[in-house]
């Protein structure tokens, strides 16, 4: 089995007022349970808004700390799920299910190196 990172990209700022967050969270949890039952789930988590991010760099041994996310832009990583799948088709299938639950958000599917620690 291979591991894949499913990243959820979402626009910065508060969600639209008409969004039924309760229903979405219920669906996300149900999908997580499906993943667990299928033996595909490894880890998942939702993130606070990108405005809460801090970037650390080290230059000549000196840490440099900056306020805000690493990438500029109007969309940032909002959460992620790590899954196990036999191949990309299996991973894309979970990606499609997650994207269905989170429509219209985009899900990026990316493979881990084979020696990723478990």
């Amino acid at each position, binding site marked *: 089995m291979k591991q894949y990172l499913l990243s959820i990209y979402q626009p910065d700022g508060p969600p639209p007022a008409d969004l039924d967050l309760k229903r979405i969270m219920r669906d996300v949890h149900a999908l997580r349970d499906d993943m667990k039952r299928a033996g595909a789930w490894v880890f998942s988590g939702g993130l606070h808004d990108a405005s809460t991010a801090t970037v650390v760099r080290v230059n000549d041994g000196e840490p440099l700390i900056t306020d805000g996310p690493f990438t500029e832009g109007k969309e940032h990583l909002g959460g992620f799920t790590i899954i196990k799948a036999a191949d990309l*088709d299996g991973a894309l299938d979970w990606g499609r299910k997650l994207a269905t639950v989170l429509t219209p958000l985009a899900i990026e599917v990316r493979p881990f190196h084979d020696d990723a620690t478990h």
Partner: protein
Amino acid sequence: MSDQPLVSTSEIARIFREEYGRTVAVLVRRFGDIDLAEEAVQDAFATAVQRWPSDGVPPSPAGWLITTARNRIIDRLRREASRDDRHALAAVMQSRDDVEEEVVGDADVGDERLRLMFTCCHPALALNVQVALTLRLLGGLTTETIARAFLVPPATMAQRLVRAKGKIRDARIPYRVPHAADLPARLRGVLAVIYLIFNEGYTASSGERLTRDDLCAEAIRLGRQLNDLMAGEPEVTGLLALMLLIDARRGARVSADGSLVRLADQDRRHWNRALIREGQALVRRCLARNQPGPYQIQAAINAVHSDARAAADTDWRQILMLYDQLMAVAPTPVAALNRAVAVAEVEGPHAALTIVDGLDLERYYLFHAIRADLLRRLGRSSEAARAYDAAIERCDNTAERDFLQRRQTEVQDS
């Protein structure tokens, strides 16, 4: 040993093109590494070029090539194996017999090639990457040839192929014929890639020459292979028929000076009758299944054109009926535009222009070219001239642009 070679170099080259895809496919499946497979197959062909002229072509060239290439890979893996790899290598060595089996059973070899086709045309790869991979791995075209065909620098094409092979390996894009539920959509993807290769060959999207015959030939070869492998899919047969019927007109489509000749003006004696007969027989065979799809219907439309001895004998009513059917299964703006051409013949240019003006195809040069022709026929010369200008502006193929320019000049002079 006689001095007379038992097989010519050009015959070996022909076998190379014919067997490259299946040889690579079997080895990719066995060893799971595209680069390793490609390199070994190239080596095997180099060996064939040395040996076959004196030894003769083996009874199963594909079997010989696969066995030779496989032995190369095993030798190489053995040389490079570290102590830790010994165990993995033992497993590979054991698979020797399985490979032999696959080589003997031709149907299995066919399946391997089909698997590789679906890998090359996987939707996780960009369309231009799918096209390049298909030509490289299944067609055996060199990176330089593919680069030249698509007018990109060889280094760019090489990079594109390296990245694609890396993604197949690292993201583990499977070598598999998709499950029944995914098959229709995935097969549409494969057909689209083959048809795109054909169209790029038939009317190069840019450049000076109108056609790139090698791409047409390659697309038809892939279409034939796919039709052998998936005989039960009427759209596969439909695509092959469509390409054959269009390709049959190639000899009449370009005049001696390299300029474009429209369908209506072509000397139909120069059409390839053998291709037309084959294409028409395929059309009849797939339509008899009564599962119409866009490729079959477009093939049927072209079959009607090839039935007409002269342009004036064309059965436009039949063609319009087929376009109505096409609009029912695949209502695209381009199909609607082509249908309008048939409407012009059956109901007149005014009815056709009304349809064309309602289409959102502002960026497509043929939209403007067809509009220009309809305006010309309605005697609205200055509007026609402007529409020709719009078409010329959006057309990147020199031969087609010259044709449009001649029409534009004619209409301005009238």
